[in-house]
């Protein structure tokens, strides 16, 4: 509550303004904004998963069921690729702490390549599905299945583009404040994609065939 005048011995001595530089650490400031953005991204997936609760078995007149198009065993490989990519990016983070530029570049390249493999394999899987007639237009379930997997896939693609940018910047500029800020936010983003994939794999793949 408000300060009482009677408790202030000499009102003239009160400090009204400060010229000390703002204590806002730019990297912390960027990170908090990115965490807030991630919260809104979580809501996007929350909406999609809520929709999945409705569309999980909404086949309409289509004869294609979830058990026919979903194969948790073959989806295990992209899962492992994505997790390895996240692990490699985490190791790049460790290398950043050690201030080892070469090591950061090495692990980031590994994370990028494995992430790319994840996307390519998903494309391949879905091209196969489309050839079998399991297109998103066939039923509400398939619409939902394609949308939820590719909403995640789109995030991964955006992450890859971003990773390429940070990779070039680490190569060119080294660990400047802006580059490190971008690197750390990308790390949040990339780990988050693995977390979302855990949910996709559990709710869409594993529970889809049970």
């Amino acid at each position, binding site marked *: 509550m408000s300060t009482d005048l009677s408790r202030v011995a000499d009102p003239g001595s009160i400090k009204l303004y400060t010229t000390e530089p*703002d204590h806002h650490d730019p990297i912390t400031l960027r990170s908090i904004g990115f965490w807030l953005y991630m919260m809104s991204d979580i809501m996007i997936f929350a909406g999609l998963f809520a929709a999945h609760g409705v*569309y999980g078995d909404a086949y309409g007149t289509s004869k294609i069921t979830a058990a026919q198009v979903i194969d948790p065993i073959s989806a295990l490989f992209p899962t492992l690729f994505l997790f390895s990519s996240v692990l490699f990016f985490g190791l790049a983070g460790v290398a950043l702490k050690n201030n080892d530029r070469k090591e950061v570049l090495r692990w980031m390249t590994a994370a990028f390549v494995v992430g790319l493999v994840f996307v390519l394999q998903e494309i391949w899987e879905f091209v196969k599905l489309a050839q079998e007639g399991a297109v998103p237009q066939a039923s509400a379930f398939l619409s939902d299945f394609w949308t939820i997997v590719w909403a995640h896939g789109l995030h991964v693609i955006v992450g890859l583009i971003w990773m390429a940018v940070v990779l070039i910047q680490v190569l060119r500029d080294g660990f400047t404040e802006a580059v490190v800020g971008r690197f750390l936010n990308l790390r949040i983003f990339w780990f988050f994609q693995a977390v979302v994939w855990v949910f996709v794999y559990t709710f869409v793949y594993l529970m889809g065939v049970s």
Partner: protein
Amino acid sequence: MFMNLQGPWDPLFGRLPMLLDLQYNNPWIMFAFALVVLGGGTVVAALTYYKLWGWLWRDWLTTVDHKKIGIMYIIIGLVMLFRGFFEAAMIRTHQAMAVGPDSPGILGAAHGYLTPFHISEIFTVHGTLMILLAVTPILVGFMNLIVPLQIGARDMAYPFLNAVGLWLTAMAAGLCMVSLFVGSFSHAGWVGLTPLTELDHSPGVGVDYWIWILQISSIASTVGAVNLIATMLKMRAPGMSLMRMPIFSWTAMGTNIIALTSFPLLTVAIALLTLDRYVGTHFFTADGGGNFMMYTNLFWLWGHPEVYFVVLPAFGFISEIIPTFSEKPLFNHTSMIFATMMIAGVSWLVWLHHFFIMGSGPQVNTFFSIATMLVGIPTGVKVFNWAFTMFRGRVRLETPMLWALGSVLLLIGGGMTGMMLAIPAINYVSHNSVFVVAHFHNMFLIIAFAIFGAVTYWWPKAFGFYLDEKLGKIFFWLFWGGSVFVFVPMYALGFLGMTRRLDYIAHPSWWPLLMLEVVGIALYAASVAAFVLQVYVSIRDREKNRVRTSDAWETSRSLEWATHCPPPFYNFGATPIVHSNDEWAWRREHRLTTLKPENYSDTHMPKNTAVPIVLGFFVGLFSIAAVWRVWWVMGLCVIGMIATLIFRAFQKDVDYVIPADEMEAMEREKLDQIDHRAQDSAQQTGEMGEPEIDGHAHG
């Protein structure tokens, strides 16, 4: 591609050849077109004549200054509010004309002067635009303008992101204006009822316009929310704990938490609908396993929190205005904060009350009914706090105070009818009646009143001169009269059983009440004229109406009044240290109103950048191409957006430093202008503010 489109399509021009078949013989559209060309032409001509394009580009279009961005948001909102008023006037006059089988019909309509499809477009665009492109930008604009000043910050946490949000909103507004002349607008209601919005039932481009307007403004709001929350969490001046943050900033916090969590759900709902229309998926279709109530749920999961998104800042305006003009601290600052956050929390538990008649069963309806009534508790706390603030205060009925009081009175009426509608049994008979329409317009009028109060209240802060008091009062009373005459008869018509969205009224006995509403619309039209005149007169007499000190109302309480009017681009010469809930009032009571710090320091400021407006250009072009399904332009725009963002990531020269001596020189110039007047003013307000030191400051 993917879909069977009605009408022509070719790879180069998409659906644009459809335009060749359209008939431009509607005099209303020609009138609107003439108005826009005239208005836009005047602005362009004036800018060219006075050679202001360079100034516009350097000082406004590429700015990252939160105050200028806020002002541009508010201008967009006011222009859209004006257009929304036109549509309201058309709906009201048309309905008053189209009563009974013998009523005349002109301009191709069987009754009245608007064809059924045209009036459907009008009420759809009225709703969409008023909520997303008028009220939301104005409120976001005020949050931009005031929050950093209130918390003693130099700028927003992410000035660049702030400009991106502005230009996305501007593009959504632009898209809405384009839809007026190029093609058509959605006819499916602002909520976009599925499966009516599906391609099978709405084959035109109207729904696509509506989709992209919603989608772009939704993303803009999310971006803005991230920025404002981070600003309030990290950028507060030393001494300002969260509980000392002024109430308007707190309501901005509540609002943006709502925005951050609810707008993504709109993004999902609209994205799924987009897939249905563009790719042919079956989310909300009537066939293929689609479920259109899923859309309604997702839409209102955003839609209801959105209601509190718009009302909370309005409560914030009221909470700033009432203490200033009661010359007392706000009654129970802490409970106001809790009430705000409670409203923000409960906003998540009530969405189903928009469709009690879905038939979810008594248990579900009971839950949502009780949750809805719970909103009344924190809102009641607020009303009593405002009342107790005025109690034994020295209430001055200046224009902002009139608007605030009008707003509180409307809140009581709107709140009461809201409690009625929260009861499912009543809702079963009143669903889709104009009683509901009157209720939510009543609620939105609270916001409109608070907005005009805020415009009057913060105008001297933003521009350095007052709005004309006399015309402001005329504006207020005309607007109040319009509100009473339009919406009291509408409540009555709702009780009589009139449903909403009618293009023909079959009940001749309703005619007198409909005519009363037209009287209200006439009063509204007069009030618009009064407002325009008020702004014109005030700008003309700006030298006479100069603000004398930093504290325009002389009894203001929070930190935005501790800097010059208008605030310099760096906001504060040196960062203020906060000692109290109402820092400026505390300084005034202790005779510490000097704006001159002991010394100055080097200050980091962000540089202006054209990247946000370029990004906005690509987004705008993308959405127009998407509406007309010109795939190659859409592709190029996506590449353009990614390239723009990557370009920004590689920009290194994004900020600069104001040296301490330069800052001192700029400040000295400003201080010299107001110094002796500030001395006078401090003596004056000292006399007025004296008893407060012991009396109320402890509250």
